[in-house]
C-alpha cells in the first residue's frame, strides 16, 4: 500500500517540477520590460479608474506621467494636489497648481417650476429620451431626469432626488472626474471651480430659447434680460444664445447677481443668510411670481 503512495507522490512531484521549469523559461522568454516607476506611481494613484484624467484608467495615466516631460495638462482630479505632488516628488518633476473643480447641474427644472406636458414611457435612459423628443416638459434644453449621470458616477457622488426629479451632486464626494459631464446628452453638467466652504453661484439653466418661450416652459428659466451682466463688476457674466453664464474663475461670489435675477435662475449655495431679512423676502416674491 505504502509504495503506491510513494510512487504517486514522486510522479506528481516530478510533474510539478517539470511544469515549474517550463513555466519559468516561458516567463523569461516573454518578459516585457516595464519602467518600475510606473508601478510606483500607480500605487499612489486613487485606483478608481474613473478616467477623469483623460486616460484609460490609472495605469495608463501612470505611464503617461512617467513618460511626460512636464506635468502641464496632466492632472488626477480625484487624487487632487496631494497625489500630484507625491507623483511629482517621485519623478522629480514640478506639479502645476490646478484648481479643484466640482460638478454642478445647470438646470433647476423642478416639477413645480417646469410643468410636465407628456409622459415618457420608454427606457429610463436619457440618451434615448433625448433622441426621441423634447422631453416630458416643453423645455428642450433641461434635465430629462432619467439618471444617466448618476449611473456614470464612479464615486457615488450623485443621486436622483425623487422630489425634484433632478440629480443631486454631493460636493464632498465629487472629485470632478467629468464622467457625468460626458454622460449627459444635453450637456447640463459643468465642472466649476471649487470655492471656499463649497460656496457656489451659477446659472441653473441651459435654455437657449428666447425669453418668452423659455419662460413659458419653465418659471426659473434664464430669459437673457442682461440684468446680471450689468450688475456684475468683475466681467464674470456673459450672455450668449439668450443664456447667461458666470465664469467661475472670475466670479468673486459677491452675490449681487443672485438678488438681481428676476426669474431666480441664478442659485447660491452654502452662504450665510443675508443680513437685511426684509430684502430677502421681497426678493423671493419677485423671484417666483405666479405665472
Amino acid at each position: 500500500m505504502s509504495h503506491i503512495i510513494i510512487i504517486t507522490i514522486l510522479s506528481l512531484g516530478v510533474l510539478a517540477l517539470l511544469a515549474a521549469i517550463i513555466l519559468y523559461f516561458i516567463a523569461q522568454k516573454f518578459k516585457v520590460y516595464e519602467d518600475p516607476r510606473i508601478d510606483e506611481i500607480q500605487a499612489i494613484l486613487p485606483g478608481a479608474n474613473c478616467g477623469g484624467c483623460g486616460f484609460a484608467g490609472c495605469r495608463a495615466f501612470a505611464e503617461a506621467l512617467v513618460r511626460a516631460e512636464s506635468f502641464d495638462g496632466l492632472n488626477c482630479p480625484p487624487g487632487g494636489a496631494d497625489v500630484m505632488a507625491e507623483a511629482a516628488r517621485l519623478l522629480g518633476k514640478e506639479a502645476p497648481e490646478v484648481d479643484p473643480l466640482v460638478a454642478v447641474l445647470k438646470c433647476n427644472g423642478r416639477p413645480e417650476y417646469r410643468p410636465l406636458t407628456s409622459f415618457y414611457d420608454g427606457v429610463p435612459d436619457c440618451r434615448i429620451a433625448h433622441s426621441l423628443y423634447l422631453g416630458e416638459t416643453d423645455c428642450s434644453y433641461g434635465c430629462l431626469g432619467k439618471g444617466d449621470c448618476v449611473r456614470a458616477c464612479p464615486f457615488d457622488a450623485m443621486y436622483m432626488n425623487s422630489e425634484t426629479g433632478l440629480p443631486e451632486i454631493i460636493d464632498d464626494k465629487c472629485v470632478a472626474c467629468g464622467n457625468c459631464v460626458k454622460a449627459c446628452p444635453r450637456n447640463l453638467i459643468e465642472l466649476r471651480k471649487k470655492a471656499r466652504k463649497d460656496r457656489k453661484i451659477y446659472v441653473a439653466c441651459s435654455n437657449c430659447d428666447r425669453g418668452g418661450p423659455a419662460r413659458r416652459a419653465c418659471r426659473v428659466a434664464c430669459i437673457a434680460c442682461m440684468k446680471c451682466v450689468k450688475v456684475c463688476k468683475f466681467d464674470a457674466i456673459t450672455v450668449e444664445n439668450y443664456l447667461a453664464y458666470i465664469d467661475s474663475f472670475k466670479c468673486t461670489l459677491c452675490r449681487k447677481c443672485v438678488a438681481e435675477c428676476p426669474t431666480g435662475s441664478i442659485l447660491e449655495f452654502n452662504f450665510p443668510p443675508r443680513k437685511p431679512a426684509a430684502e430677502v423676502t421681497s426678493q423671493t416674491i419677485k423671484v417666483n411670481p405666479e405665472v
Partner: protein
Amino acid sequence: MKTFPLGGVHPPENKLTAGIPIRYLPIPPSVAIPVTQHIGSPSEILVKKGDMVKTGQIIAASKGFVSANIHSSVTGVVNKTDSVIDASGFRQTAVFIDTTEDEWLETIDRSSEIITEIKYSPEEIIDKCLESGIVGLGGATFPSHVKLSIPRGKRCDVLIINGVECEPYLTSDHRLMLERSEEILVGITILMKALRVTQAMIGIENNKKDAIARLTGLSGKFPGISIHGLKVKYPQGAEKQLIKALIKREVPSGRLPLDVNTVVHNVGTAFAVYEAVQKNKPLFERVVTITGKSLASPGNYFVRTGTSVRYLIEAAGGVPENTGKIISGGPMMGKAVSNADVPVVKGTSGIVLIPEEESSRSEMTPCIRCAKCVSVCPLNLEPYLLMTLSEKGEFERAVAEGITDCMECGSCSYCCPAHRPLLDYIRLGKSLAAKMARKQMVK
C-alpha cells in the same frame, strides 16, 4: 402567393376604417405649416407676416438637393412664423396662417374629369413634381423628383408601386386605391414615362382584395401595369422587402433600389403625381386615416397640411377619455406625439389613438435568448446582440454586426417575450454610430 423570405411578424390588423369612404375634412380656422415636411434641409420661407396667400400658393421654396417646395394649404393671412412641435417631437419652424374663404390658385384644375392623356416629356414631369413639392407619401417623405431623376450610369427597368400598407390600423392607401383607382393608374403611367420604363408592378397585400380586384379590372387600359397580390406579412411595405417579394432582387446593404435597377413609389405618391401633372395641383392635402379602438367615428379624410391633429380628432368624435397615446403614422413605426396640437404634414399617413390600457409598455425581464428576434428580423440581423452592444457603447462592433442596416421596423421589439426595448437601443446605437462615423470623416 408572393412575399419576402426572411422574418416578419403578423400584428393584428385592426383595419377599422377599411370600409369607410374618404371624406373631405372642413378647413380649420388656422393652420401651422412646417417648413420641413421632407427629409433634407428646411425650405426657405417666401412669405412674411400679414401676407395674403391663396390655396396652392408656394410659401417656402426648396433649398438644396433633397428638399421640396411647400405650398399653402389654405387661403388666408400669414399670422406669424414661429416654432411648432411637430410629430417628430422636436420644435421646428412653421408658417401660421389664419384662414379666410377658400380660394384656389387659378392654375389649378378643380374639375373632377380624369385626364388620361399625358402630354409632357419626362423632364417636364420631373419639373412639375419639383414645383408641386411632391414627396414620398409612404412616410419617408423623400422628394419624388430626386427619385425620378436617374443619375448617369444607372438604369431602371421596372417601376414598383407600393400599395402594401402593412401597418396595422392604417387604410389611407387602401381607400385611395379603391376610390381614385383610375387617377392612380394614370399617375403610375406618368411615373413610368418619367423613368422611361415600360413595366410597372403594383404590390398589394392580400387583405385588400377589393382594391386588387378594382385595379386589376382597370389595368387593361394601361399597358405595362400589373397588379400583384402579396401574402400578408409585416414589414412588406418596406422598400427592400417589397422589391425582394415582387422581383426577387436583393438590394445590397447600404445601397438604393436603383442599384438593382428599380424604383419604388407609393400609391399615394402616384396619386399626388397625377394631380400635380394633370391638374396642376401642388401637394397640400393628403388622405389621413384617423382611427382608434375607442374613437367615436374613425374614418379616412382628405386633410390639408398644417391642420392640427386635435382638429382632425374633433372631426372624428373627439379625444376619448381613455386615450393613452396618439401616434402619428402606424403603431409599428409611427411616432407617439407629445401633444395633440402637432400639425398634419405630407408624411402623415394616419393618426392612431391607442387606449390607456394598451399604451403602456410591460416591464422588461431578462433576455432568455429565445432567438425570436433573430428569426423575425427581415434583414437577418441579431437584435439581441445589437441591443447589448449599443447599451454597452460598443458601437464599432455594432456597426460590424450591421446595426446601420436596421430599418427600424420594430418586429424584434414586437415579438420579444421578455419585453425588451430592443429597437430603442438599436436606434440609439444607430444614431451614435452615425455620429461617430461623421466625426471620423471630419478627421
